[in-house]
């Protein structure tokens, strides 16, 4: 890998995300954003450089960092509820491989856990406006609903760090706006750390604490601090500070020849 004839996809890149932060990554297509996500998630290993995090061993990132791709990737043969239960099912299978030979006490505990998980999913589905659709199959849902279900599945995976790769990129403008406000209203209570890929400047400003601009080739990142107060309301779009930040973002993007 290291003696490839191609230039590295990511080089000289450094970024840091603090616990509880919402950080957006903006950059042109092909600049390596998705590769960076795959590296962080543990699907790929870097040929050089270091990744460190406080959540545990660096080598055990798979299963510890939640990842949500642009396509919802709900399994078509599972209902919405069963899709959301999938991360827990996988985790359970890992923790007790011999579940059929389990001692009764353990079995009871596992049942209780299952009930708790089911209650959590049912409750969250209700709050995500999907309560009526728990038993529906993904193809019966609208794009926005599918994306919300996929988000809930990511949430249920339980990682402290959530990597969201253009989660609203495939939605129409109206649904997208709706989803942004929905995520904004949800954000306060989530207590998670989010790294968010987007091409949408307003979306980045609306949701993030910081925005990182990623040049092609993955060189040094430029940073913009979004000092808009939280909790943010829908009207934040029209505030002078928002427009100012947007202007700055626009300038930096053209200045850095990012597009």
């Amino acid at each position: 890998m290291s003696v490839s004839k191609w230039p590295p996809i990511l080089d000289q890149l450094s970024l840091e995300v603090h616990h509880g932060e919402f950080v957006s990554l903006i950059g042109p297509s092909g600049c390596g954003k998705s590769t960076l996500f795959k590296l962080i998630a543990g699907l790929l290993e870097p040929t050089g450089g270091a990744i460190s995090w406080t959540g545990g061993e660096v080598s055990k990132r798979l299963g510890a960092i939640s990842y949500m791709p642009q396509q919802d990737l709900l399994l078509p043969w599972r209902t919405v509820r069963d899709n959301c239960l999938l991360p827990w099912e996988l985790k359970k299978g890992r923790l007790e491989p011999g579940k059929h030979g389990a001692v009764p006490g353990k079995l009871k505990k596992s049942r209780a856990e299952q009930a708790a998980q089911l209650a959590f999913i049912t409750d969250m589905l209700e709050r995500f406006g999907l309560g009526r659709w728990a038993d529906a199959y993904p193809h019966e849902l609208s794009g926005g609903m599918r994306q919300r279900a996929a988000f809930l599945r990511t949430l249920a995976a339980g990682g402290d760090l959530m990597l969201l790769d253009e989660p609203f990129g495939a939605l129409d403008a109206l649904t997208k706006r709706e989803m942004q406000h929905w995520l904004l209203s949800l954000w306060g209570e989530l207590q998670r750390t989010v790294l968010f890929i987007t091409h949408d400047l307003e979306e980045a400003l609306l949701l993030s604490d910081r925005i990182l601009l990623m040049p092609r080739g993955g060189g040094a990142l430029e940073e913009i601090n979004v000092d808009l107060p939280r909790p943010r309301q829908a009207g934040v779009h029209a505030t002078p500070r928002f427009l100012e930040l947007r202007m700055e973002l626009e300038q930096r993007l053209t200045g850095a020849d990012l597009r």
Partner: protein
Amino acid sequence: MTMTAFIHHLRKLLRSYGPFLLLLIMIVTLWEWLVRSGTVPAFIVPAPSSIMMALIHNRGLLFGTHLPVTLAEAALGFALSVLLGTGLGTWMHMSRTVERAVYPFVIISQTLPLIALSPIFIMWFGYSIWSKVAVVILTAFFPIVVGTYDGLRTGGQAYSDLLRTMGASRLQLLLKLQVPLALPSFFSGLKLSVVYCVIGATIGEWLGGSSGLGYYSRRMAGNLQSDALFSAVLLLSLLGLALFLGVALIEKAVLGRGGFAAMTGRARRKNI
């Protein structure tokens, strides 16, 4: 079922199978006429009516003795083919080395001329049911291996990446993702295979047997009793059709539900 619903159902059936039935009736009528008018001699091609007469006349022997034997050979061979085929297909999927080592042999097995091989099977297994079952397996396991293996490989990369970030193990990836994704391809292989089973059993009986529809048709051919020969061939064809429909029904029961239907595009077709 109400009367209108019944009529609606009947119409739908007629629309689906009407053209086939119409063509069938036309062919049979023309055939009957060709034989009766003496254009084609009856010992070369018997009239459909005399095939039916032969079928009715020998019903005890055909349905009581020979059909069960052929069915047993085909069913046993099919069951073993499914075991062998899914096992081999899954193993090849799980291990690159096994795939590289075994896949060529799987293909070579299909290039061997069965007719030439059959005497060897008789040498090994005698005139027991196992010499026929061996021929059945050799013809029928191939589509199952390919269906299983190709099906398991279609497991979309994006899905498996996602499940891996949830910490899925290889076994979990197989069970929760690749097996469900493989089912449509697996059933395609199964449907091909079950039809091959009847053909395999017939060939096995032709080359060495003392009962079964293949043996019967060979004996009738020797006696120049073409009407009886044709009646056995008709039964074999119907047997293959029935087995195919049986597998198709199982497929429908498994894949026709909820989300699978959307995946295989069946839901859309159902609405037409």
